[in-house]
């Protein structure tokens, strides 16, 4: 099982702008559930609160109100039941790829041969066996993020939380990574909450899309593409993809006015 849910989550920030204090309502009573084995993408313009929602789900930020549950049990703070993949991978630069994967496992209390074996297995899974002893600066952007994914997957979390993980990659690498993520998902059946601002990406990888605007869930849509998705390039040519993409686009541009980012 692996189900993560936000219940009535609100988040207020206070900002000091010049002399006065402004309150920004980043999230207003956001509720949603990511079901077991499902991939949900959270999409919206910058400042819509999608990253904040993800960080609250992870426990890196606390909500002003509301609860987060994993498999129905309320969680406070971070836990090994959730694995985080950061926007820029955020590998520890002084550790090799292998040691970076081992770091998360060590924090879970794993030691000795099991530690090495597990880390090796997950590096294999993301195709980095050959580069296990490289340090992050010796890896390309895509390879770094593969290590980031391996590090998060290795602790065998119930839910994988991904914060615009491919946003910083070039277009070709991004497409490769999306396909690899689909293969990883087919093999591991992990529940994934995936934050993105890329419309195509949201549709291609997700089972459901939540469109966020100004701290609210604007609309939730099913993606009628089959699983396994296989060749994502071919999926792009289907009418189901085009229709869904257009519906999401409409939701993002509802009521005509261009949305303005208020907080990144």
């Amino acid at each position, binding site marked *: 099982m692996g189900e993560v849910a936000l219940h009535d989550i609100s988040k207020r920030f206070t900002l000091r702008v010049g002399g006065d204090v402004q309150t920004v309502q980043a999230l207003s009573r956001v509720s949603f559930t990511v079901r077991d084995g499902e991939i949900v993408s959270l999409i919206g313009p910058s400042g819509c609160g999608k990253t904040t929602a993800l960080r609250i789900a992870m426990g890196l930020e606390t909500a002003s109100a509301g609860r987060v549950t994993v498999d129905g049990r309320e969680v406070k703070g971070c836990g090994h039941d959730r694995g985080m993949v950061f926007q820029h991978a955020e590998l520890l630069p002084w550790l090799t790829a292998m040691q970076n994967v081992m*770091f998360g496992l060590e924090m879970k209390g794993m030691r000795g041969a099991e530690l090495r074996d597990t880390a090796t297995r997950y590096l294999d899974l993301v195709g980095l066996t050959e580069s296990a002893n490289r340090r992050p600066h010796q890896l390309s952007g895509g390879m770094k993020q593969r290590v980031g994914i391996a590090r998060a997957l290795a602790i065998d979390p119930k839910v994988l939380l991904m914060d615009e993980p491919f946003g910083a990659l070039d277009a*070709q690498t991004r497409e490769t990574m999306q396909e690899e993520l689909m293969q990883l998902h087919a093999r591991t059946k992990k529940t994934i909450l995936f934050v993105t601002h890329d419309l195509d990406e949201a549709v291609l990888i997700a089972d459901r899309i939540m469109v966020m605007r100004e701290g609210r869930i604007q609309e939730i849509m099913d993606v009628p593409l089959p699983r396994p998705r296989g060749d994502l390039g071919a999926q792009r040519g289907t009418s189901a993809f085009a229709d869904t993409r257009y519906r999401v686009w409409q939701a993002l541009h509802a009521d005509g006015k261009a949305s303005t980012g208020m907080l990144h």
Partner: protein
Amino acid sequence: MAEITERDTVRDAAPADAPIEDAAPRRGMPRWLITTLSVGLLLGVWEYFGANINPVFGSYPSAIAEAFVELARSGKLGAALIESLQPFLVGYGLAIVAGVPLGLVIGRFRTMEAALGIYVTAGYAMPLVALVPLLVLWLGLGFAVKAAVVFLMSLFPITINTWLGVTAVPKTLIEVGKSFVAPDSVILRRIVLPATLPYIMAGIRLAVGRAVVAMVIAEFFTTISGLGAIIINSANNFDTATMFVPIVVLMVLAIGLNSLIGLIERLVAPWQAEIAGRDD
């Protein structure tokens, strides 16, 4: 290179810039040659103009070199150096041992920063020379007071740099630790400490200079001893050339220590030089 099967290129190619750049020969003069030329030029100019000055008011390289040989032959220089180095190394070593953890803790924990930061900032500006008489009353005139003066002068730059380094650690790296439920102590030791190492090493380097000055101050104002004694005695005899010998020795010592620290830095934090692209 770019048009081989796209998937494979993307998958396992190293970042294109790193290895290729290394293969290219570096242009221009090697660093050591530039340094040697610079020092040679300075000594030449000094020799040329210095030789015409009254030897009481100044000196010049060849006269200092002669005085150096004489001091070294008589065994005085070696003995003084050993005498000076003992409190220097003890004080400086203790400053590293105490200063780094202190800076880490102040930088990492708000309460500690609020409670102790102010003393560190103030301590850095403390007019230590003025306090030496007091230290003498507490610790006597011997080894202990000298080590204490060196310690107090070198502690603060190390602590302040470490502290600054901690506050410069990217928040996201700490969040990596948090997301894997690492306890505070583990975050401090395995994330904050390595991420701060370049700053710590910079602090340790800056402290070399202050420690050398502190050592001489201590030798002037407590029992006159070591290299400081040679400076004072030769100054009193208007033997300016001899006076310059310990000064030059101390500066060379500082340069040597600095390179040693640089070497250690590359040993304990090799990734830093690699990331910055420094290769010498």
